[in-house]
C-alpha cells in the first residue's frame, strides 16, 4: 500500500503538467488534444478520491463527449486561417494576469488547508435518511440526486433541453427544421464502421447495466445515458446513422421525456405522499427507477444533439 502515495503524487504531477500544456500550447489543436487527455487523467484522480460515480461521469462526459465536441470544433477552426487576428497580449499584461492567477490559486490552496477539522458531513444524515425517502437505494448518490436534491436534478435536465434549443437557435433561418450536419463529412473508413458495428450493441448493453446497477452500486441514470449517447455518436461517426431532423416528433419527445416524467411524478407526490417531489416510502425505489429510465433516454438523445450542432442547410 506504500506505493499509493507515490502514485498520487505522480498523478497530480501529470494532471498539472497536461493542464499547463493545454494552456500554453501554441497550436489550437494541440491544446484541444491536451484537454481530452487531461479529462481521462482526471477520471483516475476521482477514483483515488473514492468517487467512482464521478469518475464514470468525468470519463464519459468530461473527457469523452466533450472531447468529440472540442476536437470537431478544433479541426474546423484549425482549417481557418487568421482565426485570431489580434496581437498576442503584451508582457506586462501577461505578468499581471499571472500574478493575479497565482494569488487566487495560493489563497485557495491556503484556504483548503484551513478547512475545519473534524470536517462537517452530511454522510450520517444521508445514511440514516436513506431508509426513509430514498428507501432501498444502496447507492447514496442516487438517493441524493433523485430524492433529496430532486429539484436540482430535474432542473439540470431542463438545462440540457435549453442548451439543445440554444444550440439549434444558432443555425440559420433557412436551415430550421432540417438535420444537423453529419458528424463526419468524408466516406467512413472500414475499420471505423466495423468498430461501430461491434461496439454499439455491447456498449448499449453496458449502458443499461450501469443504469440498472446505479440504484445499489456506482453508476446511475446519468452515466448510463452518457454511455448510450456515446454509442449513438459512434454509429454517427461511422455514418451508420445520421443526426435526425430537429423537427422530428420522436426526437423531441425523447428529449423531454426525462424531465416530463420527473415533473409529473413530482406533482403526483403532492397527492400521494403529501409533498411535491416526495415518494411514498414503500414505492420509492420502483418510482425512482421508472423516472431514471426516462432520464437515460433524454440524456442519450440530448448529448449527441448538443455535439451535432445546429441544423445545417445541406443535409447531405
Amino acid at each position: 500500500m506504500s506505493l499509493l502515495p507515490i502514485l498520487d503524487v505522480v498523478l497530480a504531477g501529470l494532471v498539472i503538467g497536461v493542464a499547463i500544456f493545454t494552456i500554453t500550447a501554441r497550436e489550437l489543436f494541440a491544446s484541444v488534444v491536451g484537454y481530452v487527455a487531461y479529462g481521462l487523467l482526471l477520471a483516475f484522480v476521482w477514483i483515488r478520491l473514492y468517487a467512482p460515480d464521478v469518475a464514470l461521469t468525468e470519463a464519459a462526459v468530461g473527457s469523452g463527449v466533450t472531447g468529440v465536441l472540442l476536437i470537431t470544433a478544433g479541426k474546423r477552426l484549425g482549417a481557418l486561417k487568421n482565426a485570431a487576428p489580434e496581437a498576442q497580449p503584451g508582457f506586462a499584461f501577461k505578468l499581471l494576469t499571472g500574478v493575479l492567477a497565482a494569488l487566487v490559486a495560493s489563497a485557495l490552496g491556503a484556504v483548503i488547508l484551513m478547512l475545519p477539522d473534524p470536517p462537517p458531513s452530511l454522510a450520517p444524515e444521508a445514511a440514516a435518511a436513506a431508509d426513509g425517502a430514498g428507501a432501498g437505494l444502496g447507492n447514496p448518490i442516487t438517493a441524493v440526486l433523485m430524492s433529496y436534491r430532486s429539484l436540482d436534478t430535474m432542473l439540470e435536465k431542463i438545462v440540457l433541453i435549453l442548451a439543445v434549443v440554444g444550440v439549434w437557435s444558432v443555425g440559420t433561418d433557412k436551415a430550421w427544421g432540417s438535420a444537423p450536419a453529419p458528424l463526419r463529412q468524408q466516406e467512413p473508413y472500414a475499420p471505423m464502421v466495423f468498430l461501430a458495428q461491434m461496439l454499439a450493441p455491447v456498449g448499449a448493453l453496458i449502458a443499461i447495466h450501469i443504469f440498472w446497477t446505479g440504484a445499489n452500486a456506482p453508476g446511475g441514470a446519468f452515466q448510463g445515458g452518457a454511455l448510450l449517447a456515446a454509442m449513438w455518436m459512434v454509429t454517427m461517426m461511422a455514418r451508420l446513422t445520421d443526426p435526425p431532423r430537429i423537427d422530428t416528433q420522436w426526437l423531441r419527445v425523447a428529449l423531454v421525456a426525462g424531465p416530463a416524467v420527473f415533473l409529473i411524478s413530482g406533482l403526483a407526490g403532492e397527492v400521494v405522499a403529501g409533498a411535491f417531489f416526495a415518494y411514498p416510502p414503500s414505492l420509492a425505489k420502483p418510482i425512482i427507477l421508472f423516472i431514471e429510465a426516462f432520464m437515460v433516454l433524454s440524456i442519450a438523445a440530448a448529448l449527441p444533439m448538443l455535439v451535432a450542432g445546429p441544423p445545417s442547410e445541406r443535409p447531405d
Partner: protein
Amino acid sequence: MAESGTTTPGGYLLVLTILLPVVGMILSFTPGGRNAERIALCSTPFGFALACAIAFHVNRAGKPIVYLVGGLPPPLGIALRADGISAVMLVAAAVIVTAAAFYARPKFATPDGVSESRSSLTFWIMLQAIWAALNIIFVGGDLFNLYVALELLTFAAVPLVCIDGRPETIAAALRYLLFALFGSISYLLGVALFYGAHGTLDISLLAERVQSTPVVWTAAALMTCGLLAKTALFPLHLWLPPAHANAPAAASAVLSGLVVKGSFFLTLRLWFYILPALPAEKVAIVLGCLGSAAIIAGSVIALRQARLKLLIAYSTVAQIGYLFLVFPLATGASSAIGWSAGVMQILAHAFAKAAMFFSAGLLAEALGHDQIVKLGGAARVLPLTFLTIALGGLSLVGLPPSGGFSAKWLMLQASVASGQWVWTLPILAGGLLAAGYVYRILTPALSDDQISLVLPPKRSQEVIALALTAVAIALGFAPQAFFDFLEIGRPVVGQP
C-alpha cells in the same frame, strides 16, 4: 429561526411558481410551432396570479413562507422561502415577462406558411426559461439550487442576444456567455468552500453557522466576484452594452430589466441573509465605490452614444451602480431606509428600462434606424412612444413623482442619516448626467424637422410600453404599507 424548518400555509405556491414556466417550456418545445406562443401567452397571466397569491400569503402571515421540497428538511433537502422582497420581485418579474410576451407577439409570431420558425420558437422557450430561472432565484433557499438557476438564466439569456443571427450579435452573445460562465464557476467555487466549512448550503442554516474565518471570507469574495460579473458592475460591465443593445427590443427589456437583477438579488441574499454577522463595512464601502464609479462611467459613456439602444444599455450600467449603494447604506443605523431605497431602485429601473427598450424598438421599427442625431421631429409622429421615453427618463433621472425619485430620495436620506455624506455626490451627479442623456434624446425629437415613418407603430405595443412606465411612475406614490411589506423577513444587521 424555528419557522424555517417546516412548510407553512401557502408554501406549495412557491413550487407552482417555479413549475408553471417549466411546464410551459416543455409543452412549447414538444409540439413546437405555434403552440409555443399560445402556451407562453396563456401561462403568463397565471404566473402573475400565482405571484400575487404568494404576496398575499406573505402579507397575511407577516413572516416568510416556506416550502420543503419532498417534505425533506435542510440540510439534506432543499427549502424554498419567500419573504417580502421575494414576493415583490416575483410580481415585478411576472408583470414584465407578461408585458414582454404581449409586446413581442407581432414580431415573434410564427409567420404564415411555415409550421415553425427558428426565432419564434427560440424566443418563446427562452422567455419562459428566463422567467422560471428568475422565480427560482427569488424563492430559492439553497446555494447549489441557486447555482443551477443561475446557469438556467445564462443559457436562456444568451440565445436571445443573438436571435437575429448577425455576426456582431453572435460575438456579443459569446462574450456574454464567457463572462457569465466565469461568474458561475466563481460562484460555484464559493459554494464548495461554504459546504466544506459548514456542511450545509441552506441559506438560513448557514446564517446561523458562519463565523468570520478565512474560509468564509474567501468563499464570500469568490461568490461576490462571480455575481458582479453576471450583474455587469463596473469594471466587469464590458459585455453588457453590445449584448443588450443588439438583442430584439422585447428581449433587451427582459435582459436589462430583470436578468441582471437576478444575480444582484443573490448578492443581496449573500451579504444580508447569509453573512449579516460578518464585520463587512469595508466590503460595503468597496461595493459602494464600484457602484459610484459605475454611475459616473456608465452615464458619461451613455452621453457619447450615437445609437439610442446603446445609450439605453449604457444607462443600465449606470443604474446598476445605484443598486450597489445599498451595501453601505443598508448596514448602518438607518438600514431600513437604505433597504427600501435599494428595492425601490430595482423596481423603478426594471419597469422604466423595460419601457424604454420597448419604445426604442418601436422607434427603430417605425423610422428604420435608431441614430439619435436623425430623430429630428420624431416626437410629433410618434407622440405616445416619446411620452413613454420621457416618463421613463423622468424616473431614470430621479425627478418627482416617480419610483426613481423615491429610490434616490431614500438613498440621500439614508446617507445623511447614517452620516455617510460622501455617497450623496455620485447620487446627485448621476441624476444630472442622466438628465443630460435623456435631454439628448428628447431635444432633437421635439424639434420642428420633418420626418417620415417607414412603418406606423402598432398601437397595442405603444400602450404596453406606456403601461410599464406608468408603473414606474406609480411606484413614486407607494404607501408606507408597501415599505413595511419589504421589511418582512429581512434580517436585521448586527443582531444575528
